[in-house]
């Protein structure tokens, strides 16, 4: 690819931010550690009875993934807004849609994917039957990209604020409720002996929609943050 093409800009941004994350790889672990700690709190709070734990395991996994995913959001655009590289991206004349997509992909690869791999372990530890775990993995595969899209839009919107803190969660969590409902619903349906397909199809529809239109929203949020 020729330097300066939309493709090199996309991969270049992914490579640059990926390298930056690798330099601070300790930060990559914090959502995972948070997820594992929260998961161990549930047996302590609810008691070790396996029936009670396994009946809430699906919902618990989803809430943990949702909350742990928030931890790395603030960093997604903040340093770009502070060091002027957000300006450089906007002035470059490259399609912002693609640059926003690279940011979303980066968040999913660095946070969504690791959580997706840890969640089945948590689910099994809480006593979820294997059929439920399979559905959980599939639902997370469809749901976590949507969480990354919503999160990236909110992070771009709050990037120029000195501290976004709770504001980021206040924007993201209400928007993430449908993902949570259908994601946890799919797992629940399988566990009570029903079909998960309806919830999974709705999740898939949401994933398609948010990946198609989310980068547009994220791009205009990036533009607003620079002005």
């Amino acid at each position, binding site marked *: 690819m*020729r*330097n*300066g*093409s*939309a493709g*090199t*800009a996309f*991969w*270049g*941004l992914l*490579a*640059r931010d990926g*390298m*930056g994350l690798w*330099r*601070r790889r300790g930060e990559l672990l914090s959502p995972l550690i948070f997820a594992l700690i929260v998961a161990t709190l549930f047996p302590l709070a609810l008691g070790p009875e396996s029936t009670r734990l396994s009946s809430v395991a699906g919902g618990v996994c989803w809430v943990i993934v949702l909350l742990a995913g928030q931890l790395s959001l603030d960093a997604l655009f903040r*340093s770009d807004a*502070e*060091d*002027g*590289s957000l*300006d*450089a*991206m*906007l*002035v*470059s*004349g*490259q399609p912002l849609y693609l640059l926003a997509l690279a940011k979303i992909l980066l968040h999913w690869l660095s946070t969504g994917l690791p959580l997706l791999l840890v969640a089945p372990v948590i689910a099994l530890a809480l006593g979820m039957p294997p059929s439920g775990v399979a559905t959980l993995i599939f639902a997370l595969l469809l749901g976590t990209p949507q969480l990354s899209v919503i999160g990236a839009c909110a992070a771009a919107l709050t990037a120029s604020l000195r501290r976004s803190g709770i504001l980021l969660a206040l924007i993201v969590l209400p928007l993430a409720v449908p993902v949570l409902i259908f994601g946890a619903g799919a797992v629940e349906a399988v566990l009570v002996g029903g079909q998960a397909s309806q919830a999974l199809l709705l999740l898939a529809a949401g994933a398609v929609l948010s990946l198609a239109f989310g980068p547009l929203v994220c791009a205009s949020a990036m533009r607003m943050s*620079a*002005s």
Partner: protein
Amino acid sequence: MSEPAAQLAPPLLATEGLCFMRGEEPVFGPMSFSLKPGEVLMIEGANGSGKTSLLRVLAGLLEASAGSVSHGSDDRSGPGWQVYLGHNGGMKADLSASENLRFATRLTGLRKGTSIASSLKSAGLEGFEDTPLRFLSAGQRKRAALAGVLLAPAALWLLDEPYANLDQNGQILVDRLLETHSSRGGAALITSHGLIRPAVTRLSRIPMACNHA
């Protein structure tokens, strides 16, 4: 375009009655000027007079409240037709100068006949190519950012305080970059707080204006 002279050198950048307000408060304007190929224009003004806002409006990062910015006949649809250097440089502190420049060239393209190594050398950063920027001084980081300007294929440079943080050699470096750029038909708009005397042949200066109603 009836005059042949105008056809020969359409301005790369021209503004007409450009004003900018932040809320109800006027920041600058009206300002009208044009920048032709081979020219360097220095915008002078005190701290807080709106120089950075002007550059951000020209770069398209802020929307003007009134007036217009036009870009001559140049093709400005593609990437890398202009370069904007803000005062914070646009570089990642965790990455080295050459890693930052690699991203910059992927984003905006690479000028023919330049390379990352050669631009870092001419910016005086030889030996610091692979040091993360957080370990470099403010002046060295400025030099890294200037090396990025050198690499971009852009004809129009918008540089916010290019002389800030630089030692004497660094200021001579900026003069040399501007001279080279204007001699090959590029144009640059730079800002300064007034004490800087750039040694550039085709330099004109205009003060920041703020007197609109």
